């Protein structure tokens, strides 16, 4: 059994966050975890000049839109009703309402306070400023979360809900770095628990300089063959020789290849390392964020500290261990 004991799900009362909530509850049931559902009412920061600068006192981050007691009670009821629509028996669900100028910061603070193992959040549905939990907030969470983050895509008519259909196939994308062994062990553990088939992918990204080199084929081969050898060895060592798994080595843009392969294989869950470690070459959009935003299945970003916990069969003291912030 994986070591998830507390799942924190952030919702903004939209249908995409309904999917995130359903998946959080499903995940908690799968792992015997408790669930905290958090709705953050975002406060607006006022311009600095409206502070008390004239008196010589430093302004204290003035905010606007704080809920009154009645408004807070009404919002709390609204959130509880929203959660009741998904709640099932036998699962402990706590409903929380916070107010903060930064939704991502509020979620991270709650995750820390609750010692959450996993944050579940939906991806953005577009530049909708009324639903701040999604979109940019998700990107901020991927950078700063103190634990693993499960990003849930919005519902799509032609994509089965993994929370209903179960996980038949898990794809783990590895960078073949020092962290890859722990990450793959986590993915393999999840695959075993879910009786899912595991696909392990590595993408060789070649620089633009290499692409125009006269000996491109030789240059590419010099990168590809060692990567293939390393991938084969990694899977054999971590997954084991007898467990069913697939190894794939591709070349190109990592994000694009991961998304394409995941779609072709009807992948139910993509497992990646921390988003901060997936920097794109040339300063482009990080691979992790690209996959999180465009994937049609949930994407699990395994936090460095969590990776060892997930892959450890029985760990009773992991909750009491301090965590380092990602980034």
């Amino acid at each position, binding site marked *: 059994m994986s070591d998830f004991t507390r799942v924190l799900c952030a919702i903004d009362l939209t249908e995409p966050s309904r999917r995130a909530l359903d998946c959080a509850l499903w995940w908690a049931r799968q792992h015997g975890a408790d669930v905290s559902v958090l709705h953050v009412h975002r406060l607006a920061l006022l311009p600095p000049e409206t502070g008390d600068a004239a008196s010589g006192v430093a302004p204290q981050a003035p905010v606007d839109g704080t809920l009154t007691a009645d408004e807070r009670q009404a919002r709390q009821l609204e959130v509880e009703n929203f959660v009741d629509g998904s709640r099932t028996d036998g699962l402990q669900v706590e409903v929380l309402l916070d107010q903060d100028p930064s939704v991502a910061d509020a979620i991270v603070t709650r995750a820390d306070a609750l010692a959450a193992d996993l944050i579940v959040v939906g991806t953005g549905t577009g530049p909708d400023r009324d639903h701040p939990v999604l979109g940019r907030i998700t990107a901020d969470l991927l950078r700063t979360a103190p634990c693993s983050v499960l990003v849930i895509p919005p519902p799509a008519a032609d994509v089965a809900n993994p929370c209903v259909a179960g996980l038949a196939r898990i794809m783990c994308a590895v960078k073949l770095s020092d962290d890859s062994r722990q990450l793959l062990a986590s993915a393999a553990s999840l695959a075993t628990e879910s009786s899912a*088939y595991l696909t392990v992918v590595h993408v*060789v990204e070649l620089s633009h300089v290499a692409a125009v080199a006269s000996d491109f*084929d*030789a240059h*590419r*081969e010099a990168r*590809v*063959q060692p990567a*293939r050898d390393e*991938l*084969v060895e990694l899977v054999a060592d971590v997954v084991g020789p007898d*467990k*069913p*798994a*697939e*190894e*794939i*080595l*591709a*070349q*190109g843009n990592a994000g694009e*290849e991961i998304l394409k*392969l995941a779609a072709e294989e009807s992948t139910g869950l993509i497992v990646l390392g921390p988003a901060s470690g997936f920097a794109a070459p040339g300063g482009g959009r990080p691979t992790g964020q690209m996959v999180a935003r465009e994937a049609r299945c949930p994407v699990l970003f395994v936090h460095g500290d969590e990776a060892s916990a997930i892959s450890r069969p029985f760990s009773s003291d992991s909750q009491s261990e301090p965590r380092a912030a990602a980034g």
Partner: protein
Amino acid sequence: MHDELSSRAVIARVDLPGTTRADVSLQIHQTRLLITAGPEGAAQLLKHLEGDTHVIYRRDRKTGGFFWSLLLPSGIRVDDITATMVDGMLVVTAPAAIERASHV
């Protein structure tokens, strides 16, 4: 077999447990050697030839499906390439002199 291999350079060595010689296919396409096994490997080969994928290597340990596209050493002739398969181990070789010549 080792005596024979000592005079030849190994281009590819791959463990294909549970796969028979009849399941394995080798093709030369332009400068690349394409190794496949099983229906899944053949399907991946088709995608590769149609330019519809950037997958270079793929092995499905459940079905035995296998695909590998690798660059041939420069100066090699198709007729020089040989392959043997013993106990699920596929070894593809070419004359060692060709490998050396490529570095001259």
